[in-house]
């Protein structure tokens, strides 16, 4: 069951990720990216990261990507023009080379990671909101506060940029 779910959602993720890269229209890319995020959220659940899975959906898919889609629609951005100055070499050599690169990488990872007990659903329950919250507000309080400042700065920055754009 675990393996089945993993393979299903991993292939969805890879398929969508490939789609993100190869699609010419930004909207299609963006929605594929949402697909990647949804698949990853399920994988997070398998890894026992409940809170992160929910946050992935709420923050990433529900907020950040909606923002992307919003901007794409607002700009009415079209697809990329067919590449004129780029050589066809990229297309014909790039894909095999990329596959080989991924293969090598997988091999290295496979070799270097110690064979543990493996991942099975329900074995690790340290990812509930309670656990994450406890850690976040004790050990990681300072970084947490720092990110809040960061977010504030980001809001200000975005507002300033958007204001300028309106004028």
């Amino acid at each position, binding site marked *: 069951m675990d393996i089945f779910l993993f393979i299903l959602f991993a292939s969805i993720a890879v398929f969508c990720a490939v789609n993100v890269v190869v699609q010419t229209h930004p909207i299609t890319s963006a929605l594929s990216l949402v697909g990647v995020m949804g698949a990853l959220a399920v994988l997070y659940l398998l890894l026992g990261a409940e809170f992160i899975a929910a946050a992935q959906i709420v923050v990433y898919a529900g907020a950040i990507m909606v923002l992307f889609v919003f901007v794409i629609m607002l700009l009415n951005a079209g697809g990329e023009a067919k590449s004129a100055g780029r050589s066809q070499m990229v297309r014909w050599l790039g894909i095999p080379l990329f596959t080989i690169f991924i293969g090598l990488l997988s091999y290295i990872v496979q070799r270097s*990671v110690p064979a543990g007990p493996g991942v099975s659903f329900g074995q690790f329950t340290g990812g509930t909101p309670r656990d994450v919250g406890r850690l976040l507000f004790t050990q990681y309080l300072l970084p947490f506060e720092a990110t809040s400042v960061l977010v504030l700065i980001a809001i200000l920055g975005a507002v300033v940029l*958007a204001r300028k754009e309106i004028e």
Partner: protein
Amino acid sequence: MTTAVPLSWYLILSAILFGLGVAGFVFRRNIITVFMSIELMLNAVNLSFVAFSYQLRQTDGHIYTFFVMVVAAAEAAVGLAIILTVFKNRATLEIDEVSDLKN
């Protein structure tokens, strides 16, 4: 039925996604797509964080992922605002055409 999935599979998936993100970052020319490739890479890294967190039976990896998400949100807000401004000034989203600093 409860065949465990080797941890390395998660890491390989993470590597593949990261590689695809890099490919998109390098080859795409639409600013928004490039931006989305970055998000893809961040997601790939998040996956490996969570996977390691599982392996070590610690929640810390989740915390890092959480921070990555927050930073990604901030980055998206500012980045998209910049894209809006760029588009307004240049009427293009082609990354090659906005490479110079002077108008």
